[in-house]
């Protein structure tokens, strides 16, 4: 388990290539428990891939990732790495919530059924208890009155809030957000960011890939700027954003604003 000096996420020398293209060229990053790390950078910089490597939607080519002190995807026995069985991998993923750019709610289930799906199917929670918990979570993201709507009947912002509630239902110790507001109409962005702000205030450990610089400045404990598969600059968001040291970050911030 993570002690006071052990980070929730520890990423060491991670490399990942898709065919001839190397998208992660040696990433080192620590996310202490309870902190919010915002990852920014131009598209194609590898920030989404890094996030997807953390919960092993992508396999890495070299390096190590520990979440909650546990090596992701492998077990080390007798000086060798052994790939985990699918069941072990599923168990590791349970503790990591993931929110996608395009929500990926289950379209054949209502909002509340989406939130209940994880606990009932994966944890074996009884339906009545899962329903109570789902009602509380929908209340928390401000959608108690939309519980019985299908995703197609909800706006993008509402869908993303249901998706956050669905991840929280698994009681994760880490939440990954992969550009959670990039697919939303501008007027719907704030309602999702507000939910994420509340979540950060509860002490949830979060890794957020985003283009929302204001969110990064106000909520982030750490800002990471990635470009071309490497971390170019990192530090306190207020300092990094007001006085960027690298030309690449200055150019990027000029384009985003």
């Amino acid at each position: 388990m993570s002690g006071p000096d052990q980070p929730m996420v520890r990423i060491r020398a991670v490399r990942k290539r898709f065919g001839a293209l190397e998208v992660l060229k040696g990433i080192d990053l620590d996310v202490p428990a309870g902190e919010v790390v915002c990852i920014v950078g131009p598209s194609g910089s590898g920030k989404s891939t890094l996030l997807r490597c953390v919960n092993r939607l992508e396999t890495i080519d070299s390096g190590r990732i520990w979440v909650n002190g546990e090596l992701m995807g492998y077990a080390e026995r007798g000086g060798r790495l052994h790939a985990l069985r699918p069941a072990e991998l599923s168990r590791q993923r349970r503790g990591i919530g993931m929110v996608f750019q395009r929500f990926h709610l289950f379209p054949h289930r209502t909002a509340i059924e989406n939130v209940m799906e994880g606990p009932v199917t994966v944890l074996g929670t009884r339906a009545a208890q899962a329903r109570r918990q789902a009602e509380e979570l929908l209340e928390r993201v401000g959608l108690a009155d939309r519980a019985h709507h299908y995703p197609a009947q909800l706006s993008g912002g509402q869908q993303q809030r249901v998706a956050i509630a669905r991840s929280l239902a698994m009681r994760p110790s880490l939440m990954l957000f992969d550009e959670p507001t990039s697919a939303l109409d501008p007027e719907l962005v704030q309602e999702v960011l507000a939910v994420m702000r509340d979540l950060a205030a509860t002490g949830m450990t979060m890794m957020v890939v985003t283009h929302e610089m204001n969110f990064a400045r106000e909520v982030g404990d750490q800002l990471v700027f990635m470009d071309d598969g490497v971390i170019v600059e990192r530090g306190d968001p207020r300092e990094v954003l007001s006085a960027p040291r690298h030309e690449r970050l200055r150019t990027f911030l000029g384009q985003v604003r």
Partner: protein
Amino acid sequence: MTREQEAAAELPIEAVRPVRPGRWLGAAAALLFLVWLAYTVIVNENLHWDVIVAYLADGRILGGLWVTIQLTVLSMAIGLVLGVLAAVMQLSDNPALRGTSALYTWFFRGTPLLVQLIFWFNIGLVFPAFAIGVPFGGPKLIEWQANEVITPFTAALLGLAINEGAYMAEIVRAGIRSVDPGQREAAESLGMSHRQVLRRVVLPQAMRVIIPPTGNQFISMLKTTSMVSVIAGAELLTVAQRIYLGNFEVIAMLVVASIWYVVLTTIASVGQHFVEKRFERGHVRLSSRVRRNLRPLQKEPS
């Protein structure tokens, strides 16, 4: 209300439709043709309507009808199971399973159903007995003689179901592939196992794509069962043939069989409509989506 809204409220549209003589001419021609067709059929003395009516609810015909229904339902059910199995095998990353599934669909889609039916009926010529035991010449626990097990009905069922499975595999595979890969990722992120992802997330959504062609396969199967008449399967067409071999009312008996086939396919079409609606759950039509987008506008103070 603003002035523009008031003005709009006072401008109802009561436009006169343009005259379209071509529509009326077309309708008249089509109706005339149908009346003529019905007349020639009804007054035709060679059709023996009295015989058709007399045999429509004949015990032997109804017996054949029942066999047709049994063959259709059973072979579709078994075919569906085989199809799902073959499709899941085809999408697995185990090359041996993929190859086995490919071989199955390749062979059974590559040979005519008629040949397969005759083959299954005569399988006793190749395998005189079936046994459960240790394969490759080991000891046997139970043994059946092919001549006892392979009746026209079981041969028909084998032929229809295994052939159907090969086609259903393609339909199911297309359905599974139609599901957004993001759905799988979302389910895996929740910690679902491969089987849970398939059963809880992928298959229910694939059903929406699988159901319409499966309904077509079912309707097609109702008629395909008539091929079983080559091995005397005792279904509707076989029975009709047996009767006309006795009373020489060839056309009348074929009309009787056709009437029942049309009744069955019509019922199946209606059923298909309702099943499709059931699996449309969560898919909102464009019109209701537009209405949803309009809702905030209606709430604005007037």
